[in-house]
């Protein structure tokens, strides 16, 4: 029994690392630019497809392809901020919600037309490998994904704490007007935030390919997980999002193990609804007083 | 004359910051009280505590004898305490008339009656010419007037004005002072948060000074202004002699 639980916890933590990359991206954008990026999951999906094509056409290992997907998606983030997001900042909720929502819808459906709904997978040398210890089964691909995800999160955290640009981002997220008075260019800061967030999403996509299938709608699963993690982890708080993501991965995994194969999503939603019902004070911005 | 507003030992903490601590004062009916103090003294927080936007950690707020702590802002308003906001919050899409009507609806359900009451308030605040203007197109001072008219339309007994003079030029400040006088003339009890000293002196006979969340002085303008604690709070210890 203990082994079953431990195994489920391990599985949950490993996938939770990926959720963390996605939810940290959402948190970063929400914290700095103050908008919710409904399309975040779609960039995970694009990262997956990019890795898929690099793997099948050029034989590049998906995890190695990080060095391509991350910069490409960083640039995408900067462009999206410059051409789209910038134009709706300062307006009320409607444009800010529905612009990224429209973007999400657009990307999913164009992908559907371009790639068809067929599942795409990449099989690597280590896709089927696993470590065995203490009676537990740890797939190598997932372990690498988790390790890289945590490493990237650590780098991001250090960046935010230690570098000037990182501090500028934190400043802009806390008080935009004052930050401007201090000479920080908000548009530049926002562009970097979008770029980083999308790069993280792309990284998540690359890391997923060895053990997960790509299809146009795949992003929606991850983004819903990400949103729940952001809400649970206190909106705008990067560390909170990370911890919440790991917890959610575990909760989903336990749900799948003990309730049923398709119950993962329900468990997560129940978590969200329970949090809303019982702990609204724990949720910072965006919540009724 | 009754006690319109009795604030006792009000306290509020936000994380590591004690925003308001042991603040008490009493406002008599029909009186105009000015709440002053340096930036960050806790004046707007006090307003938010009194009107139900924040819940105090300790203390009580009684308006004409009735306890306000624990009530939601709309209940506080229904019991006769109206407030304006430091940063004006007009209902931008609506006209001036519609904005004020929305306030009047508290006491008059029927649109026609609400409209009439709204017009009275608009007239009182000198906004009649702008009745049909969309609120977001108003000038700053007119937005302030709108805030006051809207609050007035709820037929309050106590009116809390949060920095209505901020950002106005000298002529506009004079107009604002006249308006506050006019409101007081109607028998309203007024609590005004203000930075501009000459405005404070012009409208208030009773002043409460806050600094770092605590009351450091209270009394008539002359006494308060000469109080060394007050001087120190505003200008630094070098000036308190």
């Amino acid at each position, binding site marked *: 029994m203990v082994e079953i639980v431990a195994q489920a916890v391990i599985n949950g933590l490993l996938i939770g690392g990926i959720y963390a990359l996605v939810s940290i991206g959402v948190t970063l954008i929400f914290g700095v630019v103050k*908008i*919710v990026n*409904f399309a975040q999951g779609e960039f995970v999906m694009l990262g997956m497809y990019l890795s898929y094509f690099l793997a099948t056409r050029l034989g590049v290992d998906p995890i190695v392809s990080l060095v391509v997907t991350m910069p490409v998606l960083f640039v995408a983030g900067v462009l999206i901020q410059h051409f*789209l997001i910038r*134009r*709706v900042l300062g307006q009320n*909720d*409607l*444009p800010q*919600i*529905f*612009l990224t*929502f*429209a*973007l999400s*819808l*657009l990307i*999913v*459906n164009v992908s*559907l*037309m371009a790639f068809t*709904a067929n599942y795409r997978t990449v099989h690597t040398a280590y896709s089927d490998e696993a470590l065995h210890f203490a009676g537990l089964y740890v797939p190598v691909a997932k372990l690498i994904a988790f390790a890289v995800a945590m490493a990237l999160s650590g780098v991001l955290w250090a960046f935010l704490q230690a570098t000037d640009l990182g501090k500028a981002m934190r400043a802009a997220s806390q008080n935009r007007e004052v930050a401007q008075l201090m000479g920080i260019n908000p548009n530049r800061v926002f562009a970097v935030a979008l770029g980083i967030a999308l790069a993280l999403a792309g990284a998540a996509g690359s890391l997923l390919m060895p053990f997960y299938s790509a299809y146009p709608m795949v992003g929606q699963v991850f983004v*819903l997980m990400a*949103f729940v993690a952001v*809400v649970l982890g206190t*909106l705008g708080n990067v560390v909170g999002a990370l911890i919440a993501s790991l917890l959610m991965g575990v909760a989903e995994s336990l749900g799948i193990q003990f309730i049923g194969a*398709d119950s993962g*999503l*329900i468990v997560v*939603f*129940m978590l*969200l*609804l329970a949090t*809303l019902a019982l702990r*609204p004070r724990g*949720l910072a911005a*965006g*919540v*009724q007083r | 004359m009754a006690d319109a507003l009795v604030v006792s030992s009000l306290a509020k903490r936000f994380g590591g910051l004690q925003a308001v601590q042991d603040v008490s004062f009493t406002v008599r009916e029909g009186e105009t009280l000015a709440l002053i103090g340096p930036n960050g003294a806790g004046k707007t927080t006090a307003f938010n505590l009194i*009107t139900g*936007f924040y819940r105090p950690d300790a203390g009580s707020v009684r308006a004409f004898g009735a306890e306000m702590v624990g009530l939601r*802002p*709309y209940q506080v*308003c229904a019991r006769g305490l109206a*407030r304006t906001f430091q940063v004006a*919050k*007009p*209902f*931008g*899409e*609506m006209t001036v008339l519609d904005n004020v009507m*929305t*306030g009047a*609806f*508290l006491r008059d*359900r029927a*649109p026609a009656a*609400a409209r009439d009451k709204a017009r009275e308030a608009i007239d009182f605040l000198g906004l009649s010419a702008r009745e049909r203007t969309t609120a977001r197109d108003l000038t700053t001072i007119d937005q302030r007037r709108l805030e006051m008219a809207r*609050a007035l*339309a709820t037929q309050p007994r106590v009116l809390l004005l949060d920095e209505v003079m901020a950002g106005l030029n000298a002529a506009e400040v004079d107009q604002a002072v006249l308006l506050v006088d006019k409101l007081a003339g109607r028998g309203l009890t007024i609590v005004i948060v203000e930075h501009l000293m000459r405005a404070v002196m012009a409208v208030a006979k009773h002043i409460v000074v806050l600094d770092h969340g605590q009351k450091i002085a209270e009394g008539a303008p002359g006494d308060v202004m000469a109080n060394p604690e007050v001087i120190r709070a505003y200008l630094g210890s070098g000036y308190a002699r």
Partner: protein
Amino acid sequence: MAIPVRLGVAAAGTIVAAVLPLVVKSPFALDVLIRILLFAFIGTAWNLLGGYAKQFSLGHAAFFGLGAYTSTLLQIDLNVSPWIGMLAGGVVAAIASLPIGWLCFRLRGPYFTIATIATAQVLMLVFLKLRDFAWGAEGTTIPNLGNAPLMMQFEGKAAYYYVTLGLLVVALGITAWIERSRIGYYLVALGEEQDAAEAIGINVPQVKRRIFMISAFLTAMAGTFYVQYIYFIDPQTVFNFSVSIEAALVSIVGGVGLLFGPLVGAVLLETTSALLQSQLGSIAGVQLTVYSLILMAVILWRPTGILGYVGELVARRRAKRPER
């Protein structure tokens, strides 16, 4: 719009709409018209909450589905007429809107939207599992009774057209009445500045609850109609995210917070959808791609929607003419 102008438009529109089926006979065209009216109806219901009060729900499929399942269950299990089932579905949805609202309104802005998406998803997942009570993932067809008006089944499309027209007229009437009444002002106020609204005595939670109930009730009625129209129900169809999307989209494109906004939006979106369907067939992803481009264009260039933009043009013209 000024009242007399609006009444005139409504009267003219209703007359035209009433005689349309006498002129238009093609089943395809009637189907398009029915979809226009149906989504105008759902959009009008959404608009009350999302347009006026600016609480942007993307979870209205929850109520659509609840209405659909209520009437279908009553019909198949207890032989109750869908006309009654439609009202019962509305009641079920209105009641459901209380706990759903209680949870979702704890959040504001985009997080409210996310919470509504989650609720609709949860309901879909729940109904996918209810095999014994409600046919599970397979769903069910409703028995074809031929022409049975008392059971909301008709030969030919014209009658379905009139049912949706009737529903739309009711929804528009309710909206027009709300617009001019106290609750209408309260909706716009809380949508614009929630704190200021509370400060002038508006019981914001109660207003939100009430409008959510009305919106839910109406949306549920559409769900009943839809099942009767396509003779089929399953969770993926009636709790589908695209229902929620379209409910919001027709209002945003046509003009949020405006009486006829959803109708205008529905005309544009449904005819576009029908054209795409007839020219390109059913290629997955085409319709939503076009919808998303239209939505983006509206958000970036005309955020007040088609009618909103027209209103601005009219206001600008009027400002140039001296006041009479």
